[in-house]
């Protein structure tokens, strides 16, 4: 059967952790976005691996849902980032704290 399923899960866990660390320590919103994508795709990898392990399509279907949602979310997120950039603000999420008002 080639590579065992838990290998994929380990890989997924490592990718997810890398992404999470990236979200926490980076301040550039674009990089944070890429890290979020990394986390989402780590989850997708886990879904696909489990799906194959259990011989069921449920996990794969879920992965497609995640891809769709992340695409939509990127559209909105990038639009916001572009607007912030056009407004002449610094590309630093720590400076973007107006939402608390």
């Amino acid at each position, binding site marked *: 059967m080639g590579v065992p399923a838990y290998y994929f899960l380990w890989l997924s866990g490592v990718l997810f952790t890398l992404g*999470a660390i990236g*979200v*926490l320590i980076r*301040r550039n919103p674009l990089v*944070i976005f890429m890290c979020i994508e990394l986390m989402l795709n780590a989850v997708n990898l886990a879904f696909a691996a489990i799906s194959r392990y259990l011989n069921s399509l449920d996990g794969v279907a879920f992965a497609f849902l995640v891809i769709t949602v992340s695409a939509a979310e990127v559209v909105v997120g990038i639009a916001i980032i572009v607007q912030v950039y056009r407004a002449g603000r610094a590309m630093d999420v720590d400076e*973007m*704290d107006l939402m608390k008002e």
Partner: protein
Amino acid sequence: MSTLAPLVLLLPLAGFLVNALFGRLLPRRVVAWVGAGSVGASFLVVLAIFGQVLGGQRLDQTYWSWWATGDFSVPFNLYIDPLSTLMMLVITGVGFLIHAYSIGYMADDPGYSRFFAEMNLFVLSMLLLVTSGNFVWLIVGWAGVGLCSYLLIGFWYERTSAVLAARKAFVMNVIGDVGMVFGAFVIFLNLRALDYGTIFARLHQLPRGGTVITAICLLLLVGAIAKSAQLPLHTWLPDAMEGPTPVSALIHAATMVTAGVYLVARMHLLYDWAPTAAAAVAVIGAVTAFFAATIGTVQVDIKRILAYSTMSQIGYMFLAVGIGAYAAGMFHFMTHAFFKALLFLAAGNVIHAFRDDQDIRHMGFLRRGLPITFWTFLIGTLSISGAPLLAGFWSKDEIIRSALTGTNTLTVALGVLALITAGLTAFYMFRLFFTAFGWEWLAHDERHLHEAVRVQTVPVMVLAAFSVIGGYFAVGSFLNPVFGEARQIGAGTQIGIGLVAVVTALAGFLLAYQLYARRPALAPAIQARLRPVHTLLWRKYFVDELYDRIFVRPGYALGAFLSGVFEPRVLDGLATGVVSFVQLVAGDWRAWETGRVRRYALWTLGGAGVIAGYFAWVLLVARSAP
């Protein structure tokens, strides 16, 4: 005919669209041609339909289905019979003459194309009202004419009085529209149909004179009296004279205000089935006829006098359709359209000659200056007063005769009231004529007055011709297929009642002649002696003041209470209370709301970690424990 009938509607629609969308770009001559021409072309089509209807053809055709849900559908169907044909003839025929007149009358107005666009829209709505074969489209047309009435009363929107008058007319009409809509709703609830054919066929499922049919007829009557300015929803019509004079002639005299009469006549099977409601129609009509005529005797604004006269004449029509003399009512509708449109248009010429002064006391000596207007106005006055052999004589006489020969005392009493009103009509019309047009010996000053241009005088002369010969059109026998054969009355009775009516009108004429032509000093003396009566009539029976006290002021008071007390104390108090409650509870938690995305992410991840840790504990420790 099934292809001609929609054409009648489409021509004014096209005129409206062209003038509304491109009117500002087009030269005035084109605007006038499109505006008047579309109505004139529509009239020619109606003439063709008239020929086919005379040949015995009828039409009730569905052109398309507007909407349908389940077994309920609203079709767009046209219903052409002698009644709607008569209405269409008057609307497009008189409408065309008035449109042509407007070319001259409105020549200097900056809103030229807007005027013609709105007039065309009115003609379209009115035609839709009379040709529709079901209640939904009837209500569409009904609301459309109300809208155009509102737009055209407020045509000179820079005048505050015009805007207020337009608003008043709209509010009064909407009260009526609500009655109409409820009436149609009750019909649908009980008969499960909205098209005339099915309603008439299923009508006899309801008990005769029962609550349901009476309620339907009374609700429809509310709509009819609001549109036709009958008591007690009449106060808007005199104020509606703020609009341009052609508007007063077309909408507030010849066509729209008679929509109520048309409604009752169209629904005559329903009213025959509800005698109480029919009696209410007759009483409202006769009382309004008398009431408005008395007010007309003291007013001094030439258009307002004509407005009260219109109310009074429509009262006659209501009386006629209320006592079942439907053909007589429609006959009077037609002759009234001729002579009242004539009177308004001629009055428009006079008002122009006096540079927009409408007070009849400032007028006089018009025979030399405006000969055509003078003679045509005289014909109109004679016709409305019921001078023998003119149009108004035949139609009014038919109504009075039908009432006086009625079978119950109420009808006869109303007939007597109508007879008295005929005398009053002659009086106030000749008072207007003698005062405004003045015989030579009344002339107190020489003014340089100009007759109107040809495009204005020709329609007036055409209408004058019809005010003379209109009485010889066999409207009764034309409408027989709709209303059934009229009751036969002996020739002796006919001549007798005709003579009585003429004598009454003559008395009114002589009184006016004495007071306003022979001995002008007498009128102020009598007026001084009858001061309270004069004040009562001058203030129009204080109806406006009454409505002000009952509806307007309590409305303002309620508004002041809501904005001054309810909103700041109760509503704002509630909102402030919620806010301070939340602030109290939230307190220290607000420190969490830093706005730092990364901190939120850390908390989210931490939370996820806790949850993951819990599951790991459950799977690894708790499960292996036992």
